[in-house]
């Protein structure tokens, strides 16, 4: 259960029990003429939490957005290399981006619930994807998603209330519930706790931990402790390059690269 990257020493053999969910090969990303990612190669294991860390502007968000092709929306963005999801290249011709994004959900840095009711926020995806045949089934999905997101107890009697009236932490968990409701295989989270206070952060972290058995989770974070708490794997980015990656504990206690060492000890970033 080790992420295979060139940065890994050749001796450590990856155990065979888990096939990677994502396998990224030589990924380059350009915004216009500016190169934001250069030949990133990384495997992301299934059923685990992978944290992406690195100094600001190093390309973590850019990398994350490559995994569900959100960069397609940016006319400047151009990509080279390949990203495999369950062995299929998601940048291949004929891949339906819409389908891809339903399989690879995303939670953003700033909570962004729709200006609708709590119920409608969670029901939004299932309704559009036509996942349910009856109101009853839809209710079940909404309640189940809210429960998984650990929000149901707090909002059970105000499901029709406006989502924008929730607190920041509740809003973020609502966004996670919204993502879960379409039953994705992967959930990408871009600094999901950066707008939250410590209590709300703890809740979201607990939630991430409880979700990892069912979903593959990739999380961008600036918070080393957070990465240590929730992530089994960690990848360190620096100036658009993937410097090193591996088991979180390993990488934190025993970084191979001086840049990783420098970042972890707080010398830059």
């Amino acid at each position: 259960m080790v992420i295979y990257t060139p940065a890994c020493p050749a001796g450590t053999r990856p155990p065979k029990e888990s096939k990677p969910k994502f396998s990224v090969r030589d990924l380059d990303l350009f915004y216009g003429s500016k190169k934001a990612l250069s030949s990133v190669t990384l495997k992301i294991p299934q059923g685990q939490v992978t944290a992406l860390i690195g100094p600001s502007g190093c390309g973590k968000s850019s990398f994350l957005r490559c995994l569900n092709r959100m960069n397609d929306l940016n006319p400047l963005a151009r990509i080279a290399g390949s990203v495999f999801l369950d062995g299929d290249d998601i940048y291949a011709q004929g891949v339906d981006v819409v389908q891809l994004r339903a399989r690879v959900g995303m939670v953003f840095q700033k909570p962004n619930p729709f200006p609708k009711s709590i119920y409608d926020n969670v029901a939004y995806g299932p309704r559009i994807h036509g996942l349910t045949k009856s109101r009853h089934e839809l209710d079940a999905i909404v309640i189940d998603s809210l429960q998984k997101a650990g929000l149901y107890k707090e909002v059970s009697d105000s499901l029709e209330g406006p989502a924008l009236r929730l607190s920041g932490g509740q809003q973020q968990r609502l966004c996670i519930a919204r993502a879960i409701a379409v039953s994705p295989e992967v959930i990408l989270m871009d600094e999901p706790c950066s707008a939250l206070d410590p209590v709300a952060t703890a809740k979201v972290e607990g939630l991430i931990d409880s979700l990892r058995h069912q979903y593959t989770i990739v999380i961008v974070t600036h918070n080393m402790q957070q990465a240590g708490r929730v992530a089994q794997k960690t990848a360190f980015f620096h100036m658009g390059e993937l410097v090193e990656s591996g088991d979180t504990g390993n990488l934190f206690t025993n970084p191979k690269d001086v840049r990783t060492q420098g970042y972890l000890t707080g010398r830059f970033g």
Partner: protein
Amino acid sequence: MMDIDRIPAPLKGPQVTRQLARRHRADMRFRLYGLISIGLAFSFILLLMGTLIIKGWPAFIRTEIKLPVAFNSASTPQDQENYDRLLNQFIKKPLSEGAYDNKSLLPLLSAQSYQQLRILLVDGNPLNKDVHFKASSEVDTWLKTRRLNVNKHALTSLTPPQLDALYALEKAGRLCFAFNHSFFTRGDSQEPEIAGIYAALIGSLMTLSVAIVFAFPVGLGAALYLSEFAPRNKFFELLEININNLAAIPTIIFGLLGLAFFLNILKIPRSASLAGGLTLGLVILPIIIISSKTALKTVPMTIRFGALALGASQVQTLFHHILPLSMPGILTGTLLGIVRALGESAPLLMLGMVAFIVDPPKSLLEPATVLPIQIFVWAKNPTAGFVENTSAATLVLLLFLLLLNSIIVLLRRRFERKW
């Protein structure tokens, strides 16, 4: 409790692929509706402009009949009767002898041709040359139908002998087109070939001037006071709401106010450009206030504080710093108001500015008309000549508006400033 595994895994398998294809098709259709809507809106504009241009451009040219004027008599005729007889002679001369009864060809010429002849003969000298006379509207329409392929559905009241004469005149090369400058130099008339927009243009100019002279100082003053000095309290809040509403209420209501106040209380004569101008001033006042306030608001507080900190008084700060900086915005707003006033006609209808105006007003109290009202009056007349005139007047009006709007765009480009 909820069974987690019951929730379907979405978006995999052939059925999902079909569903996705349907959703993508719906997306394409949705986007297409947008394009179609814009296409429709664009074609409306094209249709509108096309109609006006196709119907209007012939009004800028007119038909003239070249008559051989031969006058040797010692005494110049005195009355219209005699001039008409002369004209009748001239028009018959190029024609081979036919069964043209007395004066039946006179209606081919514009009703005012005798005046032109009188001017030619006024000094009593003998004259022997070809002179261009303006043709009547009937002839004008007839020739334009033949040569320019317009007015296809126009009915003609020309009699067969008249038509014969016209064919003969045309064969002799005596029918020709010329620029219709009198369209710009004459006032209204019952005869479409004589009617022009000069009086309306002058009326518009006078009315607009009154409107600006009234609304600009008042509007600017009120905007300055409201944005720089007015205390923040309920009263002024209410006033602002009211000004915003004034900008949006139908202009016809300003007409009612103008009628009640300017005509009934101040006793300004009906149809006078003074009353019309003041009423239009009321219409554009909220526009000027609102856009001036917006312009003043864009001047950053730092500039105010900077000047005040240097010891300038509030009024000095206003005149030396804030006003110059916001002037382009204020001018743009004023121009917007002028654009609005130039095309406005509903409130003027109620002040009696629908009078038949031949000569341009010489003072602000004389009856006047404005270009949009002239268009309104002519538009009711279905004869081909007046449809032409209406379209042409509309083109002139739109041209003025286009000009003003271009100035606005230029002003905005030139002075667009990011603080």
